[in-house]
């Protein structure tokens, strides 16, 4: 660890551990933040950042370890205690109330009361005090404005104002810039520098490495629930940060089988949507095409548009050379496209239905004639797929909602096997899935590719996407920032492209 510039840090977390069941997600994490310091907290998705920050802000409880603020140890039983101790947590998804005014949001639950009549709100004081805080932040928003009429960036400022009104000394910001434009980010940074000058400390989580050098004093890198290093953010370059974030060998979990890349099956040309900007690519029979990039980079939006689930603003999609009208998922399915969506519970499976019914859902025409279901044929097909994919428990009448995450995902995959998809798009196929099911899903995707299916796989898990893919497209802000053939795969190259930077030559060539 690099020694902190201040002799006694404002916040010190020591030996923090946390386990869920038998899985340990934090292994004795140490972290310190000085007064008026901006500390960057870096790590891949799943490195344990959220768990650590939730512990700091009293949302969840640690197993062991200590938290010391201003020299005295603290114990939070809930978020309220943490707030009272001077901590504020600004989440990526803002928690402002759109139909209330700025002042009401700032003083929510703590509206100033009239002297002598504490059951009445002192609105004059409320607006005046809110105005003072906004002024201190040099923010030009009127306290009476409805928060819902503000832009995302301004809503974020309201959250910060709220934190300051509670006399927060340590503000945690979880990816605050994810949905901000360049100029809004600049404005946020100006504000953060003002906070620094006021002695307020900030823990800043971001995936954008270029921002870290710009705003952070030091950066702590978390990987697999352990602290890798704490470095001086000003003198460490993005490349080194990326290496520390990923820094591991490809595991042998991904038995990549080499097979012939066949003819072109999918061609996407100049596709644009609200979140996707002029994207073109092709995919081939027997190929596993990986799509990497940060959450929010437009990966999911891209594949949903190809599948006809979201409206497009321009562009075309060809399946086996034939133009496809992107009007509905039904059309895409008829052209042999399948989509395993990123959220299994909200988009993938109908949890209240049985496994058999979920499996045949996208191919009902295969088990029905004149609208009459062939229930015998349906049961047989479902039974076979459940055996092939080793779904447990294997009863076809089992309600899918009662299965574990991995088995639910197998049922969703079985749905597309039953529908006979030639182009299978899988969005974070192994998120929230246990190790065994994860290997089974990887094996299945490999087998399908071997049989000539085109697999398009989105994954935030770099070892996974690198282990499985023949080719990787990296997205950044709605565009394809880079394309890597298998021989040029490197985690550094992907992270650099995903951060909107050009990889250096030692990483990979574009």
């Amino acid at each position, binding site marked *: 660890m690099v020694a902190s510039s201040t002799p006694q840090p404002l916040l010190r977390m020591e030996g923090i551990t946390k386990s869920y*069941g038998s899985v340990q997600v934090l292994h004795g994490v140490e972290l310190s933040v000085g007064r008026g310091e901006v500390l960057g907290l870096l790590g891949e998705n799943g490195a344990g950042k959220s768990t650590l920050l939730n512990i700091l802000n009293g949302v969840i409880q640690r197993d062991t370890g200590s938290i010391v603020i201003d020299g005295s140890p603290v114990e939070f039983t809930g978020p309220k205690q943490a707030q009272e101790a001077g901590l504020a947590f600004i989440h990526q998804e803002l928690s402002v109330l759109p139909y209330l005014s700025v002042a009401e949001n700032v003083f929510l639950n703590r509206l100033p009361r009239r002297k002598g009549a504490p059951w009445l709100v002192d609105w004059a004081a409320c607006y005046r005090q809110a105005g003072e805080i906004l002024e201190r932040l040099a923010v030009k928003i009127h306290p009476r404005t409805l928060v819902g009429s503000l832009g995302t960036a301004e809503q974020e400022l309201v959250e910060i104002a709220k934190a300051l009104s509670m006399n927060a000394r340590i503000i945690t910001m979880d990816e605050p810039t994810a949905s901000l434009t360049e100029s809004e980010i600049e404005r946020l940074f100006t504000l953060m520098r003002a906070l620094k000058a006021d002695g307020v400390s900030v823990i800043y989580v971001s995936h954008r490495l270029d921002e870290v050098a710009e705003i952070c004093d030091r950066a702590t890198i978390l990987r697999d629930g352990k602290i890798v290093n704490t470095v001086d953010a000003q003198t460490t370059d993005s490349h080194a940060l990326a290496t520390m974030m990923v820094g591991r060998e490809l595991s042998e979990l991904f038995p990549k089988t080499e097979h012939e890349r066949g003819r072109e099956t999918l061609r996407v040309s100049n596709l644009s949507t609200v979140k996707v900007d002029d994207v073109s690519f092709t995919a081939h029979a027997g190929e596993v095409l990986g799509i990497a990039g940060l959450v929010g980079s437009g990966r999911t939006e891209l594949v949903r548009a190809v599948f006809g689930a979201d409206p497009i603003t321009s562009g075309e999609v060809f399946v086996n050379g034939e133009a496809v009208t992107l009007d509905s998922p039904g059309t*895409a399915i008829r052209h042999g496209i399948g989509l395993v969506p990123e959220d299994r519970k909200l988009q993938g*499976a*109908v949890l209240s*239905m049985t496994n058999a*019914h979920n499996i045949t859902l996208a191919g009902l025409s295969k088990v029905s004639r004149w609208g*009459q279901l062939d229930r015998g044929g349906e049961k047989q097909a479902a039974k076979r797929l459940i055996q092939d994919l080793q779904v447990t428990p294997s009863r076809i009448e089992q309600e899918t909602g009662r299965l574990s995450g991995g088995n639910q995902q197998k049922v969703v995959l079985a749905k597309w096997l039953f529908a006979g998809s030639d182009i299978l798009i899988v969005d974070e196929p192994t998120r929230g899935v246990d190790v065994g099911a994860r290997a089974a899903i990887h094996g299945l995707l490999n087998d399908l590719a071997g049989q000539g299916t085109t697999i398009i796989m989105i994954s935030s898990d770099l070892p996974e996407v690198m282990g499985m893919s023949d080719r990787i497209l990296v997205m950044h802000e709605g565009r394809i920032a880079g394309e890597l053939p298998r021989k040029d795969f490197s985690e550094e190259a992907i992270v650099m492209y995903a951060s909107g930077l050009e990889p250096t030559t030692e990483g990979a060539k574009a």
Partner: protein
Amino acid sequence: MSSTAQMDRPVDADAPKRRWAGLNIRAENLASGVVLVGLVIVLSVVSPAFLSFSNFLDIARVVAITGVIAAGMTLVIITAGIDLSVGSTVGLVGAVTASLVAGSASNSPFVTDFKLPVSLAVLVGLAVGSAIGFLNGLIITKTRIEPFMATLGTMIFVRGLVYLFTGGYPIHFDPMPHDFAFIGQGAVLGIPTPVWLFAIVVAALWWASRRMSVGRAIYAIGGNPEAARLSGLKVDRTKIFVYTLLGFLAGLAGIILTSRLASADTVNGQGYELIAISGVVIGGTSLGGGRGSVIGSLIGVFTVGVIQNALNLFGASTQVQYVVTGLVLLLAISLDGIARLRRRT
């Protein structure tokens, strides 16, 4: 990583809990049947008048009208929707059909000498009912208004049309054609016509919901609309279909009621939406969508019917009947709510 860990854990730790949940859900489905059988046994012991074939036929005849609506309402509720306008549809279709049947008369300027054969008049009535249902479906799918609010609107709108059409006067028959009387007052093989119609409707809807792909789509849409859409199902079209079907069935109920009462009054069908919804919910169909069955609703409407019949036999006043029916509905809805909470955790 933390999310992986959270997903892994419940697989082992909560297995016994889940078996319990399984028992509970099956118990819910059984509950309405057990309650009905229990009620019948208790009432048979307490009141000799209850346990007679004629009394059972009487219950069936009363239940048939709201039961036809409840069968259609079941499909709507399985899609996670609701339709409050059916009672008004009963009133409008009854009045429109009555006005077109020979022998009908009223002070309303809309009831003219223009008459149609009974079969055509019935078809016009069913078309009006279907049109109201179609309108409901269209509003709900195209504007994304909550079904509760949208159909509250059509409920008031259509009831207003009833008042306009009848001018506030009841439509009488002098005399009622035999063919039309047969619908509500006739019998085949000793079983009243409305009971036959009810049986046919229940059988057809049960078949459609369990043995046809449209039924599968209805359950999928109610269980998870986004997953249904991403599986290529036509969500909007299916919803419009179930609302149209319910409008059609509410129209049928309106025609049966008008024939049975031999008059079309402005208040005909008022409150039927609540009786039908009570039957559906008591029958175990979840207001959250995705779960339930037409057969459950059959049991549910009979439970409501038996309770009302018993209250009649004991000479309870209409006021008391309202209170009891309301309590039963509250109980059923609370049980459904608790069951849904339990499934979520």
